């Protein structure tokens, strides 16, 4: 897939070194960028700090299990320019690792912990990556499509 540079203005604003980290782009009310997983942090860094873009607010950070791979979704909002953008990146299902954006937006600290908790995606460079919603002894990552409730748990619930 090639990037349609005329269609998506945000890609035009990226320096060439970062623009090559963009795999695909989609225009719309909320433009989408599909980026290379290992480039997430530097692209986000630029999106947050560049005065032309200044996406200073991380609205949402989550993941989707597409069976063969995970897709990370970042929704960013620029309070100065009043616009939003969605960043997506694909993560390997067997070895789910992605760079952390917690040093760019503090809000990412909890959201990356939640994504780690429920999907089991590790974020490199996160200051305190541990479970947040479930208890520490919990086994597995329940929002994965291949997660099944343990058999003894089911029989206990059907007491």
């Amino acid at each position: 897939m090639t990037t349609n540079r005329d269609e998506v203005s945000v890609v035009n604003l990226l320096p060439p070194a970062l623009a090559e980290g963009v795999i695909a782009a989609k225009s719309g009310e909320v433009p989408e960028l599909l980026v290379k997983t290992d480039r997430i942090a530097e692209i986000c860094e630029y999106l947050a700090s560049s005065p032309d873009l200044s996406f200073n607010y991380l609205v949402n950070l989550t993941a989707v299990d597409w069976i063969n791979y995970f897709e990370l979704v970042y929704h960013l909002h620029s309070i100065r320019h009043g616009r939003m953008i969605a960043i997506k990146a694909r993560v390997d299902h067997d070895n789910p690792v992605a760079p952390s954006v917690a040093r760019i937006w503090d809000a990412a600290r909890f959201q990356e912990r939640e994504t780690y908790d429920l999907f089991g995606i590790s974020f490199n460079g996160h200051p305190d990556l541990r479970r947040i919603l479930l208890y520490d002894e919990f086994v597995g990552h329940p929002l994965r499509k291949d997660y099944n409730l343990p058999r003894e748990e089911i029989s206990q619930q059907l007491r």
Partner: protein
Amino acid sequence: MLRGNILLTRVHKLYNWGRRNSVWPLTFGLACCAIEMIATTDPRFDIARFGMEVFRPSPRQADCLIVSGTVTKKMAPAVRRIWDQMPEPKYAVAMGSCAISGGPFVGSYNVVMGVDQILPVDIYIPGCPPRPEALLDGLMRLQKKIDKQAILFKLAWGEE
């Protein structure tokens, strides 16, 4: 002079009359049932008619734990600790389907299947969530339960 000024009754009856009309619940909400519990305290439903309007922020001062909502496995140790911190005599009310049996969350990985798995429950109030009238009905049943108890004798002589 004494005529009309003396009232004869049994001590534990008088004692229970006072207890049942001053059941102070704990300010403790877990989910949407808590919103109905809050609505119960407003003038439209007026929980103050039963002397229960004094929601205490500390379990040390509370008589009644209204478990209003879903108890998750992560929250369960905190609920049990709050219960342990309450002084006797104390009462637990399971409000809503979640607190009774896990309700709509049967099959979930992180929900306790009823708060009675972690503490003794006196009154179960069904509903999802129960309306304030239902909560009041449950609390009136709790009052009847208190009326039947002989707690003064239990405290004084260690027997029922």
